[in-house]
């Protein structure tokens, strides 16, 4: 009997430790997007400053870097110059689009005036676009191929290396 209890106890303890090991070994902030490999949800939103409607579909034919950000997000200040520099460097090879949510147009325009801009920034008023893309916190960046399929997603501020690696992935498809 004691031997049976020992074996069952060891089995249960191993199972619990295994589950905890698997769970604790993961970064809880990093959640793989189920949208990867799927067509990016379609949207047409108002551009900050001009009021023009910018549709995601109008950029079909080249890779798109879709960056969700906000002026109240500290890491967004860190990554903005990197995004602007890379958008300028890549020119027509890739299209960068900023999507701002939970923010005001006044603050967005001041941010862009102070820190420069090289690509359109659209306003997601009710946050519905962010919800459709499964955005939890900002910044989050999606990389779309020329067909509009999401090939990668990054949570947190981007670096030049990360942008290049994911754009290569987007261009290879």
């Amino acid at each position, binding site marked *: *009997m004691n031997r049976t*209890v020992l074996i*069952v106890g060891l089995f*249960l303890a191993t*199972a619990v430790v295994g*589950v905890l090991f698997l769970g604790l070994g993961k970064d809880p902030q990093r*959640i*793989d*997007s*189920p*949208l990867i490999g799927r067509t990016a*949800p*379609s*949207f*047409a*939103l*108002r551009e900050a400053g001009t009021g*023009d*409607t910018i*549709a995601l*579909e*109008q950029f079909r034919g080249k890779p798109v870097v879709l960056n969700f950000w906000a002026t109240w997000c500290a890491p967004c200040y860190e990554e903005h110059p990197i995004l602007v520099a890379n958008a300028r460097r890549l020119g027509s090879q890739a299209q960068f689009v900023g999507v701002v949510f*939970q923010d005001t147009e006044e603050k967005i325009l001041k941010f862009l005036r102070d820190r420069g801009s090289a690509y359109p920034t659209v306003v*997601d008023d*009710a*946050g*519905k*676009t*962010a*919800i*459709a*893309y*499964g*955005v*939890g*916190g900002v910044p989050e960046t999606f990389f779309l191929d020329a067909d509009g399929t999401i090939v990668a997603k990054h949570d947190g501020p981007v670096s030049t290396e990360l942008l290049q690696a994911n754009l290569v992935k987007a261009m290879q498809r």
Partner: protein
Amino acid sequence: MSTRHLAVIGALLLTTALPLPAQPDPPPAPHVPDASQFVGQPAGAPLEGAALDRRTSEVSALLRCPVCQGLAVADSPAEMAVNMKGQVRELLSRGYTEEQILSYFEQSYGQFVLLRPKFEGLNMLVWLFPVIVLILGAAIVWVKVKKLEKGPARPPVQAAVAEEDPYLARVRDLVGGGKP
């Protein structure tokens, strides 16, 4: 018909024959991603009034607020959660069912957004493990009790030892005045 009339008719014909200047494409109509892109058309009846309020709370209670620590969308004051709750309400008012709405959020955020894990894959452990442990515990207790019931009754060793213990006998003698 005068020459002047002929000239006017000729000018009109020439105008209609000429290709029109290319019109620029009309600007795209503003829109946000719609649930129909994920889960198709509504499969239920549109809700309104008190029923809409009640179902909004119920369905929002099944969704995790992505920017909170373990809070349901229904309970969180975060702007993201408020937006999600608003979307749940809108979808219910359009006739989307609870299953469709949960599926829509799951397709955007993954299973992380569901507060009640689905009964599939590793998730099954969450549901089955407590039951398995309970059954095993009950089985161990049952076997132990059965064994105790079947086992031979042990003689009252302690009592016998106590009777023969000379020190205890001496104490009894002292306390009881030597009476047995």
